[in-house]
């Protein structure tokens, strides 16, 4: 009966109900499907890869441990990102409390390796990229927590306003307003950047 209800929601919720019934393989499928997006989302929130992976581990651990009480009342991804957002924002608050903005000033860490298919970028191009990336990271980091989370879900996860609203526990109109203000700030800080 539970599986039938979940099927009307999404396939992931159905998989989670199978996990609830003791199917470890379904948990593996969910992990493979959502692992990267959760880690990347948390990474862009906390801006430290090691911390992001640790928090993502905690996210999936909590998903697994709460399997027995799982009820498919929302999309699985909404539930998953709610846990991820909660853990990441809590970490940011603790971190901010402990160290201030010290870590965000360290822009040299965790720069991703650029995928260049045909030719290697010059030193100058690498520098331009690093400066540009630094500016983007700082602009996003400067946003208030909820605006930051909303932008990341909207931009990189392509979530709809309703889904973001459920993750952040706000109304849809509040999310529209939140995103409007966030993009307004980002336009002021990043619109001058050359589009390459």
């Amino acid at each position: 009966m539970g599986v039938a209800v979940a099927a009307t929601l999404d396939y992931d919720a159905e998989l989670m109900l199978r996990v609830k019934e003791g199917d470890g393989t379904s948990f593996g499928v969910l992990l493979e499907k959502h692992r990267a997006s959760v880690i990347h989302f948390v990474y862009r929130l906390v801006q430290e890869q090691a911390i992001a992976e640790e928090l993502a581990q905690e996210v999936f651990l909590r998903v697994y441990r709460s399997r027995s009480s799982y009820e498919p009342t929302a999309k699985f991804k909404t539930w998953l990102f709610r846990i991820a957002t909660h853990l990441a924002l809590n970490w940011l608050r603790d971190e901010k409390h402990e160290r201030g903005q010290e870590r965000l000033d360290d822009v040299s860490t965790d720069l991703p390796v650029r995928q260049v298919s045909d030719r290697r970028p010059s030193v100058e191009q690498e520098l331009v990229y690093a400066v540009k990336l630094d500016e983007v990271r700082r602009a996003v980091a400067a946003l208030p927590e909820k605006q930051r989370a909303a932008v990341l879900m909207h931009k990189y996860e392509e979530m709809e306003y309703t889904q973001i609203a459920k993750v952040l526990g706000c109304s849809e109109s509040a999310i529209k307003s939140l995103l409007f203000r966030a993009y307004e700030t980002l336009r002021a800080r990043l619109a001058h950047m050359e589009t390459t």
Partner: protein
Amino acid sequence: MNCPIESRNSEMVVAYAAGQLDPETARALEQHLAGCAACLSMAADQTAVWKALDAWEAPSVSPDFNRRLYRRIDDGAQLTWWERLTRPFRPMPLRQALPLTATAGLLLMAGLLLQHGPLAPAAVPRGEVVRADQVEKTLDDLDLLRQFGTANSAESVHPDAM
């Protein structure tokens, strides 16, 4: 089309910059942009923001992410509620404790040897005096045991004899 900015519908411009509008709405907005400087500027800026955010790639996931996760799941699954409660106070693992215990035992034995000299063999030491009264008592005890055993066997035979 109503001006998205004036009608408080700027998410349409955001969606346009993200390429998320359906073709018909996108065409209508483009017609509006041609005559509205404010919306045109906003669309251009938002497109620049979108491209800037595109440049921010996340690092790839560690190859041992799953292994670490499953290990944590297994660790949690094997623990009872009491073990979870006392986990912070658990002594060191057996693997580390055994060599330390063995070393401590050896040191203790060495200390005893130094204090009392080499341990005596288990055999009766030469020149030991055998006490007569103790031998007599032991023999008396044996006699008592023998008599007790005889009485028991007699009682156990008795029912068959009847």
